[in-house]
């Protein structure tokens, strides 16, 4: 049962560098999400997608970009990394439109910007 798979698990970036966090799900879910989790805080939604080719901003989209070319993949791009982007990033997916659905999470990517 792969579920939601994220890579890399850990990464250290220098200020100004760019990188892509990869995310793939094998549950044929339409909805996919990227959240960030700062220490002692809940999850903040960065971007989400309701299907291939459709993405939209969440609460904290600045400094990030996403694309959704297939149902399975939803990469998150960090441009010009800043210390404020040091966080744990979670990719997630859910089956369908409507708030009834369980969200399935990946194991997280720990990113440090120095």
């Amino acid at each position, binding site marked *: 049962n792969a579920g939601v798979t994220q890579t890399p698990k850990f990464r250290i970036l220098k200020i100004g560098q760019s990188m892509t966090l990869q995310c793939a799900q094998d549950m044929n879910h339409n909805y996919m999400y990227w959240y960030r989790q700062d220490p002692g805080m*809940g999850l903040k939604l960065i971007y989400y997608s309701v299907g291939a080719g459709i993405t939209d901003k969440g609460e904290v989209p600045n400094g990030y970009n996403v694309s959704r070319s297939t149902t399975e993949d939803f990469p998150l791009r960090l441009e010009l990394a800043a210390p404020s982007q040091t966080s744990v990033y979670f990719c997630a997916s859910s089956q369908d439109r*409507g*708030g009834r659905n369980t*969200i399935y999470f*990946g194991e997280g990517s720990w990113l440090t910007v120095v």
Partner: protein
Amino acid sequence: AQSVTQLDSQVPVFEEAPVELRCNYSSSVSVYLFWYVQYPNQGLQLLLKYLSGSTLVKGINGFEAEFNKSQTSFHLRKPSVHISDTAEYFCAVSDGGTNAGKSTFGDGTTLTVKP
């Protein structure tokens, strides 16, 4: 807009004691409520959810929660905790309106079970 408040950031308890983790929500429409658990260095996984019907919801690992519409609460309970229940617990709310598909999470409650 919807919001979630978890009233306790940390809850220490001894093994085999009962525990309650408190969650209040606000929303202008009918809501769906969830509790997720996050074990160290892992992603979140669903404990239980309330969609409709009976206000007492049972989940995995012996946890249960009660939906109270008049008090806008969804508190999580377990009658006897184990060391393995040590984790971060998140309450979440979503609705079927314009925010469909997007959940709002609380800031989390750290449950520490001591021997």
